[in-house]
């Protein structure tokens, strides 16, 4: 890492604040931002095993908190970032246009609305407070859930809360429920005895796809390298799914986030990792949640309706199935 170089650069910049910014990375390693979500932590297997080198592609994975990773991507400092298909639209609408070339997984229960003891269903949340990171993925989960039981956003009060802090916020009693993904959702369940999930992403599989979203310029310039990254992903999924190697894979994933392997296992269960062959089907155009086109379209409608952003996004321009189709057998 060019840490020393960047320190020198800072010195220069601080003294004469007038220097303009330079250079998205056009050469060198592909810079990919990832954060604490099982479908992205999965990359750690390939990093630890040196599979990128084996495929002949140079990558640098940078560990972030989720929202800062998207900020860095918007600022043009990353070639790609792991985010949800819905957040890709949110980020794109505010200036960080991306193209999804790979679907890592869909959330299959890891995203949850956890309510304090006594609240048994979404309906009970009428007039209550829900802590959630407003404008991002689990806000969407809440809207989707509420609509199913015939409620609107205005029927509840959303309290903007950092996902990391949702367990403590639920425990504080100042809100009646929280929306979060693993590990925070699970920590909330553990921290507040008697709390239950009233809605999860398993109730609407395909609402939340987790993807690799690439900067369009880098994609055009370095397509061949991205194809190799996709090949590596297929190896990762195979390694995690193969019963013979699952244990080793879980150990690597748990190590990345600082947990014991047996503590990490449940997180994988709530995430349906997709092989390229499986994503190929998801990448087919269609309506409804089975297709990422349909899912993103629904998310776009939601975002407009609830004014997460103002202008309709051209969903098709955010998705490029061609790489997956090319590599998938």
């Amino acid at each position, binding site marked *: 890492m060019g840490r020393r170089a960047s320190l020198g650069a800072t010195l220069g910049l601080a003294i004469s604040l007038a220097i303009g910014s330079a250079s998205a990375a056009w050469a060198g390693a592909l810079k990919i931002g990832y954060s604490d979500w099982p479908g992205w932590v999965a990359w750690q297997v390939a990093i630890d095993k040196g599979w990128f080198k084996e495929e002949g592609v140079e990558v640098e994975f940078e560990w972030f908190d989720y929202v800062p990773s998207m900020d*860095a991507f918007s600022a043009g400092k990353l070639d790609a970032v792991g985010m949800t298909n819905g957040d890709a639209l949110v980020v794109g609408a505010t200036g960080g246009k991306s193209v999804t070339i790979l679907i890592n997984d869909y959330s299959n229960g890891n995203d949850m609305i956890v309510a304090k003891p006594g609240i048994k269903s979404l309906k009970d949340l009428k007039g209550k407070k829900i802590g959630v990171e407003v404008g991002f993925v689990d806000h969407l989960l809440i809207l989707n859930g509420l609509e199913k039981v015939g409620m609107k956003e205005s029927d509840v009060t959303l309290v903007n809360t950092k996902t990391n802090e949702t367990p403590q916020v639920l425990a504080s009693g100042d809100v009646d429920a929280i929306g979060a993904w693993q590990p925070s959702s699970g920590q909330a369940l553990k921290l507040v005895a008697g709390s239950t999930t009233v809605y999860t992403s398993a109730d609407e599989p395909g609402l939340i796809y987790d993807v690799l979203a690439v900067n369009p310029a880098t994609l055009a310039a370095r397509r061949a390298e991205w194809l190799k990254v996709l090949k590596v992903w297929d190896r990762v999924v195979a390694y995690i799914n193969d019963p013979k190697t699952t244990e080793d894979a879980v150990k690597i994933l748990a*190590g990345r986030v600082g947990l014991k392997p047996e503590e990490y296992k449940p997180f994988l269960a709530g995430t349906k990792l997709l092989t390229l062959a499986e994503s190929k089907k998801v990448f087919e155009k269609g309506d409804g949640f089975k297709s990422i086109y349909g899912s993103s379209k629904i998310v776009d409608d939601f975002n407009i309706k609830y004014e997460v952003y103002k202008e309709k996004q051209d969903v098709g321009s955010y998705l490029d199935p061609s790489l997956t189709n090319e590599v998938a057998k």
Partner: protein
Amino acid sequence: MKRTKWFQVRKPLSPASRTLFGILSFVVPLTIWSLVSYVPWIWHPQVLISNPGSVGYLKPGMRANRAVFEQEVETAIANGAAPPEGRPANPVYLPAPHEVATAFYTSFTAAPETRDGVWLHESLWHSIQIIFWGFLISSLIGVPLGILSGAYPAAARMTEPFTEFFRYLPAPAFGALAVAILGIYDGPKIAIIVIGTLFQQILIIANTTRQLDVALVEAALTLGTKRRQMLPRVVIPGVLPNLYRDQRILLGWAWTYLIVAELIGTSTGITWFITQQARYQHFANVYAAIMMIGIIGLGADMALAKLGTRLFPWDRTEATS
């Protein structure tokens, strides 16, 4: 050691009392923490479940609110089922002193789990470097500017009104801009420390410079000091011990910006450790890391204070601080 002496305004303490009070200043908070942690009837708003009995949702090792727990015990007994068992506990985010002490040790000895992982001491060293560069850059600008402002009213009018304005702007809010200009690594983090420190620094240094005894300036003029000699020969030597003390306080100030600074861009340093541990509710580790920052900060300050008495033997105020 007469007790009445303690309550005389600005009366210096005897060395023995100084040591005693110094130790007490740490012992008292530590005792309060221990009492809250170890005495079951102080606070302990939760129950750590040891045996869930007949209650389905309770699991061993879980913490339930006491009211919920008592409710479940009553219900179980009323129904003739096995009541849950447990002992009073504090919330998971207030670990006991011995847990933090253990975490302090184990977090240093635990090897990184992944190939690109780092040891805790490497994270700490990274954070120290961020502070070092941030404070150095801030000082390179802030100290000269502050001295000029303190010495020359014209310079003061040119800098201080804007500085007064800017110092209220929240440094972390510049995070996105810093990332856009300086990238995702250490650049934006250092920039946040600089923004957070610099504007206070200019004002504090200017103020200190202004407090230089006017008699010194007048004496120098009477003795025929030339205008260009005033600053290097009279003003700076005159305020140097006080500037040094200001810098120590400002260094502490820079440390308080570390956690917000390190949240910008990639997760690194001690903040990476703290947020990652907090996400999985390992609060003993979180407090251990917070303590480390305290120890490093206090240690550095004490070393600088010692150095100060060597550098400025003529400074009288230092002895009593």
